[in-house]
């Protein structure tokens, strides 16, 4: 009978706290009753084993006593959990990106490639922590059987959202991007002497030294973006994988743009002309151009262009992250491709 005691104890470990002792007592007496009814005299060890086997594993038996079944976060709480999770994580990621942007604006020297990696790592770490905290909060709510107040709310069918287009990727856009990237690569490789600026036609081209020194990096970035566009053309629609890939290449692009911008900053600082307003002051000098002032104006222009590109890429990345997170909580509508006819 010691086996029965062990069994009852094990079942008890998995029972809800309420009524645990009582259930155990009842279980014990039932098992003994069953043995008695089935057999004459003392049951053997094997009889007990057979009975217990028939009764079921301790976890299974205990599970039948749980009121709403055994869930970490049960069916009634789960929708609320998903909603809270989606909001919290999206806000979290957006805030992190904004903080990153602020750091760039105010203290460009803080950011090196390694420190960016570090920040990304920290963000992921904190994301996991936030997720864990939310799960724990809801698990506790579930344990105390807190029921959310969202019973049959008055929902209005006419308020149902419109069906969004299936999120296809625009092919012409991708093809255009690939073409331009190839053109840029060609220029960088075969026409480095023309990468710069002229004041008026016929004058000698004044080269942009920063771009020249980073040609390999720029070409790499363009190649990656071509590779991505090929993948996007092949997949044809935005899904988790393609979104992640685009986010990845965007991040690399952001890095390259950042490098170019700091390169320009350094060059302009050397010339003693890094301020944006001093740039405006030198504009009148375009009337009587000399190499130095043209170079400065030209470099300012390039830097401005790169800064704009950086902002655009960051915004695009934020948008992609938002769409990615949204797609986890609201599945996109799939429009059936064919309609079956007949039976």
């Amino acid at each position, binding site marked *: 009978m010691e086996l029965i005691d062990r069994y009852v104890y094990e079942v008890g470990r998995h029972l809800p706290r309420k*009524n645990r002792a*009582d*259930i155990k*007592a*009842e*279980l014990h*007496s*039932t098992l*003994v*009753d*069953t043995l008695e*009814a089935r057999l004459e005299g003392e049951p053997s060890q094997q009889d007990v084993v057979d009975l217990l086997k028939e*009764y*079921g594993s301790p976890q*299974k*038996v205990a599970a*039948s*006593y749980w*009121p709403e079944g055994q869930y970490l976060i049960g069916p009634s709480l789960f929708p609320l959990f998903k909603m809270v999770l989606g909001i919290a994580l999206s806000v979290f990621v957006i805030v992190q990106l904004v903080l990153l942007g602020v750091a760039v604006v105010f203290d460009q020297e803080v950011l090196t490639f390694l420190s960016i990696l570090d920040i990304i790592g920290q963000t992921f770490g904190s994301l996991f922590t936030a997720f864990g905290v939310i799960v724990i909060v809801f698990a506790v709510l579930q344990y105390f059987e807190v029921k959310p107040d969202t019973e049959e709310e008055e929902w209005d069918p006419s308020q149902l959202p419109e069906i969004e287009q299936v999120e296809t990727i625009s092919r012409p856009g991708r093809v255009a991007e690939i073409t331009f990237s190839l053109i840029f690569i060609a220029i960088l490789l075969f026409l480095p002497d023309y990468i710069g600026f002229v004041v008026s036609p016929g004058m000698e081209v004044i080269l942009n030294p920063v771009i020249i020194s980073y040609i390999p990096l720029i070409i790499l970035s363009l190649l990656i973006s071509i590779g991505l566009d090929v993948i996007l053309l092949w997949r044809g629609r935005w899904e988790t994988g393609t979104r992640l890939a685009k986010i990845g290449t965007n991040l690399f692009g952001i890095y390259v743009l950042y490098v170019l911008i700091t390169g320009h900053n350094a060059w302009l600082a050397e010339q003693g002309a890094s301020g944006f307003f001093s740039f405006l002051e030198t504009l009148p000098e375009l009337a009587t151009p000399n190499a130095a002032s043209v170079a400065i104006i030209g470099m300012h222009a390039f830097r401005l262009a790169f800064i704009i590109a950086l902002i655009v890429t960051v915004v695009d990345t934020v948008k992609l992250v938002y769409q990615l997170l949204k797609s986890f909580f609201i599945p996109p509508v799939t429009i059936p491709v064919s309609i079956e006819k007949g039976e």
Partner: protein
Amino acid sequence: MHSMMINTDMTTAHEKLTQELRRGVLVLATLSQLDQAKYGYALIDELSKRGLEIDQGTLYPLLRRLEEQGLLESEWNVEGSRPRRYYQISSMGEQLLQVLKVDWQELVGIMEGLLKDKE
């Protein structure tokens, strides 16, 4: 009562669905037999002898749930060879039982009608 089973898939499906049917009538069956106080094992035994097989793992949690809902009353009885928990229908349970009986008759009538059409 059971026709020949063609393969094990059918058998499993049959078992599952019969179980569901039985689960549906469990509460009514239980309430109907607890006009006198009985302990769990005795109830299972009795129902089994009268043709309704119930799993121990199903009945005991059910008895507790019915008690929590106020349809049964229970107490530990220490006379006899060992302490046992006895269940008996409460007055509220009695009232509900009468109502359920009527519901059941209705349901039987409806089902007979549905199945008769398709013979």
